[in-house]
């Protein structure tokens, strides 16, 4: 039984996995994730893939919003840029998926840089409105730049392949998603304990103070925008590779809000939190979906209620979390851990 944490060096304090116990559980958890597709049915695997894309995007957005304190209401647009870039590179220029994927990320990062430039001049409320406008402007281009995006008809994309091995089922794609999620989360977790990550937090806490201690605000804000939209672009490109079509309807304003909701419900400024948030906010609508499927047999006509009900639940979750648990699921998780740390002699 542990009775407390004692660390003698800063390096120990900054370790991601702080004890053998945690490392052991992490290995077991990864093993479980790797074994999951052999136990689950296609529907569960579909949901797992969707969760994976959401985790990547939410972790990226949290780097921007949770760590650097810059609000983005246009993250779906960045995901859209990523999705379209990969689709166009694959279908028009014959790139393979593996090259198109990083290109999609880079393209989204460039879009993020452009949107991030106003962050030099405006912040808070105004930045939030600027990114919201960006969302609608990108939407407009997705729909009306027919020559490039094929408008509302969208672009069909072939599935990614490794040699002659097609990654075309939920199960096969799951492993790709899993690897990308582990890479994304690992990079983010390491980034936030680096010099760059500390600069982000300093900017969030007090931008003027950060500038006085020698942080180049503009540079680090742009870095945050670029990394964060790179994540969104990767998520978008993976999603497009998974569903094998891209249309403007896949990246609406609603998706931007959903990403922000994941970050907030999970916990601002916590990588673990955005994972929780992404899992939670993806599972809740799916559960509602299943529930309405069951209820359909008992009450007739409940299927039309599903969409508005989803909206009400989604909105209430945001409101309730902000009022009652502003630090999100990560804080709940921390409290549970703290409770069991000294259990049963917590005094």
């Amino acid at each position, binding site marked *: 039984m542990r009775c407390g944490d004692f660390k003698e060096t800063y390096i120990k304090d900054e370790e991601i996995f702080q004890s053998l116990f945690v490392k052991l559980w992490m290995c077991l958890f990864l093993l479980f994730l790797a074994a999951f597709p052999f136990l689950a049915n296609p529907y569960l695997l579909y949901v797992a893939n969707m969760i994976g894309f959401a985790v990547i995007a939410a972790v990226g957005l949290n780097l921007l919003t949770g760590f650097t304190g810059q*609000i983005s209401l246009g993250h779906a647009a960045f995901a859209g840029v990523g999705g379209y870039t990969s689709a166009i590179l694959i279908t028009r220029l014959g790139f393979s998926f593996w090259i198109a994927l990083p290109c999609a990320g880079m393209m989204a990062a460039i879009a993020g840089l452009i949107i991030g430039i106003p962050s030099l001049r405006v912040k808070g409320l105004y930045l*939030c409105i600027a990114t919201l406008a*960006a969302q*609608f402007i990108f939407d407009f281009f997705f729909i009306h730049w027919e020559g490039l995006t094929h408008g509302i008809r969208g672009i069909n994309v072939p599935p990614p392949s490794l040699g002659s091995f097609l990654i075309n089922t939920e199960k096969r794609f799951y492993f790709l998603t899993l690897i990308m999620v582990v890479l994304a989360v690992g990079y983010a977790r390491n980034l936030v304990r680096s010099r760059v990550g500390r600069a982000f937090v300093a900017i969030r806490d007090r931008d003027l103070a950060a500038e006085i201690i020698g942080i180049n605000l503009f540079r680090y804000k742009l870095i945050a925008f670029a990394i964060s939209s790179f994540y969104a672009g990767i998520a978008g490109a993976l999603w497009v590779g998974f569903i094998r079509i891209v249309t403007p309807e896949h990246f609406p304003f609603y998706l931007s809000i959903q990403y922000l909701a994941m970050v907030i419900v999970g916990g601002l400024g916590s990588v673990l939190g955005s994972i929780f948030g992404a899992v939670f906010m993806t599972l809740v609508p799916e559960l509602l979906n299943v529930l309405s499927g069951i209820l359909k047999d008992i009450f007739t006509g409940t299927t*039309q209620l599903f969409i508005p*009900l989803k*909206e009400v639940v989604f909105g209430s979750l945001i*409101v309730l979390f902000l009022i009652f648990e*502003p630090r999100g699921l990560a804080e709940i998780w921390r409290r549970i851990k703290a409770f069991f740390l000294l259990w049963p002699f917590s005094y």
Partner: protein
Amino acid sequence: MDILLQVIVTGIATGGVYGLIALGYVLIYKATSILNLATGSFMTLGAFVCLTILVGSGAPFWAAFVGTLAFAFVLGIAIERMVLRQLIGEPIISVIMVTIGLAFVVQGLTHLIWSPDYRSFPEIFPPEPLNLNFAVVPSGLLWGFIFAVVGTLIFILIFKFTRTGVAMRATANDQQAALSMGISVRWIFALSWSFGAIAAVIGGIVIGNISGISIYMGDIGLKVLAVIILGGLDSIGGAILGGLIIGILENLTGIYIDPLVGGGAKAVAPFFILVIILMIRPYGLFGKEIIERV
């Protein structure tokens, strides 16, 4: 030339309605520094409530209108008391997100109570369009414009001459000073929310009269963001002028640029204007210059 004049006149009429909805944002922002992104869903809700009173009870229009305003008053106070008051002093992202959450709740509830079908108001205003010699104003737009102007005037008069209005201006100016003068800042916050809700609801009824009611009509609320940024977030006069400018620009884009790009430019024009204003003059035409250059 005729087309140009016609477009400008239509733009002014639309712009008046935008100005009214923009008031819904500004009234709340002025007193509480909160940007209420749920304004659009308030509009939709108001339009549906008005329609239900009108059709359900067969009451005359003015009664339904007053009933809806009373409803908006209660709605505003209830939302402020239950949700926003808990978040006083929280970071800006929480407050913005909570209004977005509210927007989804209100829109979802509206969808649950009234089905998503498209409806239209019974004929309330005389349908004859107004014929100025050089242009024609459709009846819906004309009456919408009249409503907007009258509504705005009433709000301005309230702000200028009533005790409550003075208290609201004092609160907007300096909360500490207002508190020490015996003004109940809490009550002013609640009142600002109900004023904002009332402005939004009138906007909803007017838009409902012009183009029919559906649960998606609240999307206009986001477009109006361009108006308040142009006019200045905390300026009532700015909201009206901004509304007119955006209304005209939007209609001009619709006529002259839409054919060039194959449609859709009209809907997105306000957002382009929004970005340009944010780059050049983020506090708008009449807003307080409180933006720090960072």
